[in-house]
């Protein structure tokens, strides 16, 4: 029997997922900077709160500032049979461990002919919106989605955060788990059920336009959808939740119904993951689309510091509305 859903913030949902998974599986460890000594003892956004008290300092480790070895040692520990979670304080810093992720962990199963599993989760946060500027605000999920052997998870709700983090830790593949720094305090109902990787979520049903979006952009798309409804455009919103494995079937089904498509992501638009979704959809649903699919993504610019500039480079609800109208062909009714 399912327990009744609880209302939790995303950081608490993540914290609960860690506690539950660490209780269930004693072969799990977690390490990262300032995990137990910062704030009230739970890392920079609280996600590891009380982990050390509960599971001890052997399994919950504060580390030096050495991202490269943290990630490669995480890969080595995972290959040696320990389910390893590495927390990287901001996902921008994961680039320091790119060799461990891309050249080692991602390839370890394949290169060695399937002998090794590498149950590594690298948890971090991406996204902008809180003034952290160019080196603490990137949305780099596309880079990892392009790498064979990696799984990429981008949860946008508390329930998804819980269910997907547990699945990510259980996965025998290396997984990049990217939280969103502006959403940690968002609340939602959490059922505490596992959510398999590779299953999109229909965040809103509608019949006129399919919007594919993740994390903060899902939220903005939902806002936009309310306003669009008033203008007679009924939007369906698909949150892929994982970029790899990716659930194109849910997108295809939606697009076949709505015949219009818009992808919105906070990652830079150019060469961002939206292009993959569009290319697949165009190839699969050619003849079932009434207009060209459109994309919104961050401008081709680093994330600036000053507030208005930061907002300007990332898609807003207003821009989503405008692009949605363009996507369904209501160019004339464009709001500004």
């Amino acid at each position: 029997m399912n327990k009744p859903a609880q209302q939790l913030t995303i950081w608490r949902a993540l914290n609960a997922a860690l506690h539950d998974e660490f209780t269930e599986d004693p072969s799990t460890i977690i390490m990262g900077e300032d995990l137990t000594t910062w704030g009230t003892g739970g890392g920079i956004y609280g996600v590891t709160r009380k982990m050390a008290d509960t599971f001890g300092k052997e399994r919950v480790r504060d580390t030096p500032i050495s991202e490269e070895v943290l990630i490669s040692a995480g890969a080595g520990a995972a290959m040696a049979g320990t389910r390893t979670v590495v927390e990287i304080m901001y996902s921008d810093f994961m680039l320091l461990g790119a060799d461990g992720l891309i050249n080692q962990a991602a390839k370890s199963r394949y290169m060695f002919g399937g002998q090794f599993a590498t149950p590594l989760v690298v948890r971090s946060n991406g996204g902008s919106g809180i003034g952290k500027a160019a080196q603490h605000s990137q949305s780099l999920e596309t880079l990892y989605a392009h790498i064979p052997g990696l799984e990429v998870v981008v949860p946008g709700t508390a329930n998804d955060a819980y269910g997907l983090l547990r699945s990510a830790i259980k996965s025998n593949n290396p997984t990049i788990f990217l939280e969103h720094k502006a959403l940690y305090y968002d609340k939602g109902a959490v059922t505490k059920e596992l959510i398999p990787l590779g299953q999109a979520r229909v965040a809103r049903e509608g019949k006129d336009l399919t919007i594919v979006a993740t994390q903060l952009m899902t939220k903005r798309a939902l806002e936009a959808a309310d306003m669009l409804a008033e203008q007679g455009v009924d939007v369906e919103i698909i949150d892929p939740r994982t970029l790899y494995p990716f659930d194109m079937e849910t997108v295809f089904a939606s697009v076949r119904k709505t015949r219009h498509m818009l992808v919105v992501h906070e990652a830079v638009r150019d060469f961002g993951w939206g292009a993959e979704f569009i290319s697949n959809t165009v190839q699969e649903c050619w003849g079932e689309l009434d207009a060209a699919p459109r994309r919104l993504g961050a401008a081709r610019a680093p994330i600036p510091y000053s507030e208005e500039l930061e907002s300007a480079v990332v898609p807003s609800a207003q821009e989503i509305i405008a692009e949605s109208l363009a996507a369904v062909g209501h160019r004339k009714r464009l709001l500004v």
Partner: protein
Amino acid sequence: MTIETDVFNKFDLGTDGPSALELMSTIREFESRLPGYSEAGLIRGSTHPSVGMEAVAVGVSRALRDSDSVASNHRGHAHCLAKGADPGRTLAEILGRRDGYCGGKGGSMHIGVKELGILGTNGIVGAGIGLATGAALAAQAQGADNVAVAYFGDGATNQGVLSEAFNLAAIWNLPVVFVCENNHFAQSATLEEMVAQPDLHRRGEAYGLPSVDVDGMDVEAVSNAAAEAVHRARSGLGPTFIVADTYRYLGHMAGDTEIYRTVDQVEQWKGRDPINRLAEKLLTSNVLDQAQLDAIAATAVSAVDGAESFAKSSPYPDVSSAFTQVSEDIR
């Protein structure tokens, strides 16, 4: 060629003391106001004040020219101000204003000033080390006698890039001075837990660099060690590693609960305060009298008052600027 390595410009209390005191006092005043700006919502994201650590940047910078390069870290306002950055334009950047050095695009962790050779404060712990090494390489390749300084914390010494930079600088004799501000914490992590060999200078030695420990709460000591290192670098004798023992009085950044240290410890370190120590020395050696000390303190406050009103009255940047300056010739 014989190079007189001991002929460097020693710190002179009479001539260098008053200006060092004023600069440290200005930095102290500047940095002390930051938490208030954060609380008032004037600063977004993270800002890392260096109150308590003023002697390092001020001591090091005495030996530097405008054409020398400095690569800094997240706790970098002092490095900029000591190198000659205008407090008003620096603060304007921290507040995200149009008149900030970077037009509000950078913020506290990305303050660069090209004409002063400031290659930026930096949001990536350890990253300035490589940039400074590169600036030193540029100076050497161009046959210029410029030097480069990398400032970084004790926490950054655990980034692999430091060992790579040590080695590269040593084999190429690069004109670079590596300055570690060892304030004993990396965010909430203590040095004792994060290293097994706390004599950090041994890391420099292991790669072949002359490496020295210096009292980072004593501007004179820092200044002399840095002047010697800069002189060596400028003379073609290569890199030096300086480890300055210091402490930050404030939290790592706004919102720091500081559960990782005791109030006692903070108070003990305040007993070694670099500004008080220099002021006392200037007083007891009759370089300055109390009135002059008070005047310097007042000057510092009014300099920062000026900076504050300049910065606060600077407008926010035009939104269109968000889309420019990504690449040359490419919008």
